[in-house]
Every structure is written in C-alpha cells, then in structure tokens.
C-alpha cells in the first residue's frame, strides 16, 4: 500500500524540489512507500482531503482544525522557530498611514492562503472594515498581490510575513508596511492521518533526529527549515482553539 503526502499550497515555490527530496528521505527513514502530491490551490487540495486520499500533510493552521478534529489527524512536528504572521502593506506613496485611516470600499489584494487572509481581515477591524464593506480580489501569489498594490489596482495587500520579507528589494521599496501581526502561536504543522498512524512514532523519531542523520541537514536546507520541533497534542489543540476564535 502506498500513502499520500501533500503540502499546503502556500509553500514558497523555491522549495518544491525540497519537498520531493524530503519525501525520498522520509520513505527510507520509515520504510514505507509515500507518494508526494502537490496542488496549485487550497480548493483542489481540500477536495482530496474530503475524499480521504491524504495520509500526511504539511498543513496550513486554518486547515489543521478540520484535519485534527474531524478527520482524526495527529500532530507530528512543526518547523523550528517558524510562525505564520501577516503583513498589510500599501503602496509607498499611499495616503494611508495607519489602519484606522482605511475607508469603506477598500480594495484588498489577497491570496487563497486561508490563515493569512483571516489575520488580515482581523487587522482591518479597528477601521470598522469587514468582508461586507471591502472589495477583495484574489491573486495567485504574493508577488502578484504586491504588483496589484504597486500598480494601484488594489489599495492594500495581505501578505504572509515571510513572503513579504522575501519580496525583491525593488518591489519592497514601492510598498509600505501598515501593520504586522505578532501572534506567535499560529504555525504550519506536519500531521499524520488515520491510515498511517502505525508509523507515527517512527516519523516523529526520524524528524526529531534529523539533524544527526547524515543526509538530514541537506534535506532541511532544501526545505528551508532549521529543523523540526516536536509538537504535542495539547499545543495543537491550543492553536486550534485559538484559530476557532478568529473565524466566524
């Protein structure tokens, strides 16, 4: 029997190869055949999750709730030191100086990345803005979000902080950060589904010892992670409870 691994579609494109390298390494480490399936959109990925085709997922925190509480997934690990934070940026010359300056009818460029979108929407609430009185347009990537803001097609853009910091200097100079979240709790997690849970301990062990493995550091570098951090069931439940307070 072969199992399916997938990755939240918001990973940076530079790390596609990294996930294939990781999958090859993991199969050897735990002695199971695993197929890596990547998706272009959250929607396509969710269809396969609903159809119970996924056994292991590097999950967006927004999806973790459904995966853990409805689909019986269990937490394995989280990338060391990484947190999901959101940035709202405007064009460098924009008249908006603070969140409270934002007005009804605001044109927002965002992606289908669900946790960043949720954090972005929360950060505009102090201006009495909500999905009923703003115009939201979805872009396929953060670079496109940036372009729409710079070209004046949108008044503000929502970014994953990491993606915002990774924008080229030329693009960044034409943007200005209005606000940046500091939530510290929300993060991506590797989760294992019911069919693969007989290997849960083996996977945890392998990731825990990855730095000491001869090939481990190279694989981590390809993923862009410093290492994996153990995550307990309760840490995961806490994050899910917190996410739950942020969604309607």
């Amino acid at each position, binding site marked *: 029997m072969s199992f399916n691994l997938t990755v939240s579609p918001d990973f940076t494109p530079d790390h596609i190869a990294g996930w294939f390298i990781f999958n090859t390494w993991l199969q050897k480490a735990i002695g199971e055949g695993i197929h890596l399936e990547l998706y272009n959109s959250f929607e396509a990925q969710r269809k396969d999750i609903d159809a119970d085709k996924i056994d292991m997922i590097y999950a967006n925190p927004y999806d973790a709730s459904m995966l853990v509480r409805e689909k019986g997934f269990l937490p394995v690990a989280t990338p060391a030191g990484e947190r999901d934070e959101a940035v709202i940026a405007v064009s460098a010359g924009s008249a908006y100086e603070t969140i409270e300056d934002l007005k009804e009818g605001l044109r927002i460029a965002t992606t289908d990345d669900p946790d960043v979108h949720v954090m972005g929407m929360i950060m505009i*609430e*102090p*201006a*009495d803005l909500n999905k009923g009185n703003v115009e939201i347009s979805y872009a396929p990537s953060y670079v496109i979000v940036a372009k729409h803001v710079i070209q004046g097609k949108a008044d503000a853009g929502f970014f994953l902080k990491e993606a915002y910091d990774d924008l080229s200097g030329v693009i960044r100079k034409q943007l200005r950060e209005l606000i940046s979240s*500091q*939530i510290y709790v929300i993060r991506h997690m590797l989760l294992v589904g019911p069919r693969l849970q007989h290997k849960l301990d083996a996977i945890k062990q392998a990731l825990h010892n990855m730095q000491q493995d001869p090939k481990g550091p190279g694989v981590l570098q390809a993923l862009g992670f410093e290492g994996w951090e153990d995550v307990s069931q309760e840490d995961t439940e*806490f994050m899910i409870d917190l996410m739950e*307070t*942020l969604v309607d």
Partner: protein
Amino acid sequence: MAKQCPLPDMQPEDVKGAAYREYIQTFFDGTSRKILCTEIETPFPEGKLIVSRTDPEGIITHANQSFVYMSGWTEQELIGAPHYILRHPDMPILGFKGLWDTLAEGKKWHGYVKNLRKDGGYYWVYATVVANIRDGKLVGYTSVRRKPSRKQVLAHADVYAKLRAEE
C-alpha cells in the same frame, strides 16, 4: 464569617493618577472587593492578540505576554486567580451573564469588554471565548481579544452606561 475574596482591596497607592472612583464590587462567588478606577486608558497593542485560558470555573490557567502586560499584574499573580480580576465596575452584569449562558449552551461568545488594570486604568477589547473540549469533555475556556474599533467602543460604552444605571 463571609468568604474572603481571593483578590486584595485596591489601595490608593496602587493607583496611577490622582483622580479615581471608588466601588465595592461583588462577584458571583459572593465575595467583594474594593476597586479604585481611573480614566486612564491603555491602548491595545498593535498587531497582537491578548490570550488567556481558564478552567471550567473561570480560574486563569494561562495568560500570554500581551495579557500580562495589559493587565498590569504579573503572570504569577494571574495564574490561579479568578478571571473577574479584570472586572471593571463600568461593565453591566448582563454582559457577563450573556457570556456564561452562551458558553453553557456550548456556543462561542463574542463581545466588547472594558477591562480593569491593576493600577486602576482600563482597556477595551473585542473578545471571543470558546470552550476547550478534549476527548469529549470540557476542560476549560480560551479567550482571544483583538483590537476593537473606536466607533464600537464608544457605542458600547454608551449602552453599558445605560444598563449600569438600571441595575
């Protein structure tokens, strides 16, 4: 003898600023405490969430850094204290009845809350409280507060003042 409030009466030397109002606040457990409150508002920290957790009875079990900072108490003082440690005399009784009734129905609660600081000042939040269910059992509650809009704060201050006047 009546049960002793786990929190001390506030003293003038605890209070920041010269002018304050004085109240005797009674809590759901029948205990009372003297509260001194000022008109000094602490602004909500930008981009942050104020998070706490309680056990099923409302005793604080966790407080994040922003919670500690905004409350004016130390983390040590907060853990194990009843959540009414933040109860501001300007909040109507009905507000918290709504909170506990909603949670008892197994639902999520949202509301605007004016909270009391240890130094007598206050801060406004938009709070959401959810039940923490583990293996089908209620083990506590999580409250996450975000920055409210000024318009909502003013509107709620008004409504709460009217409700207080009727109590």
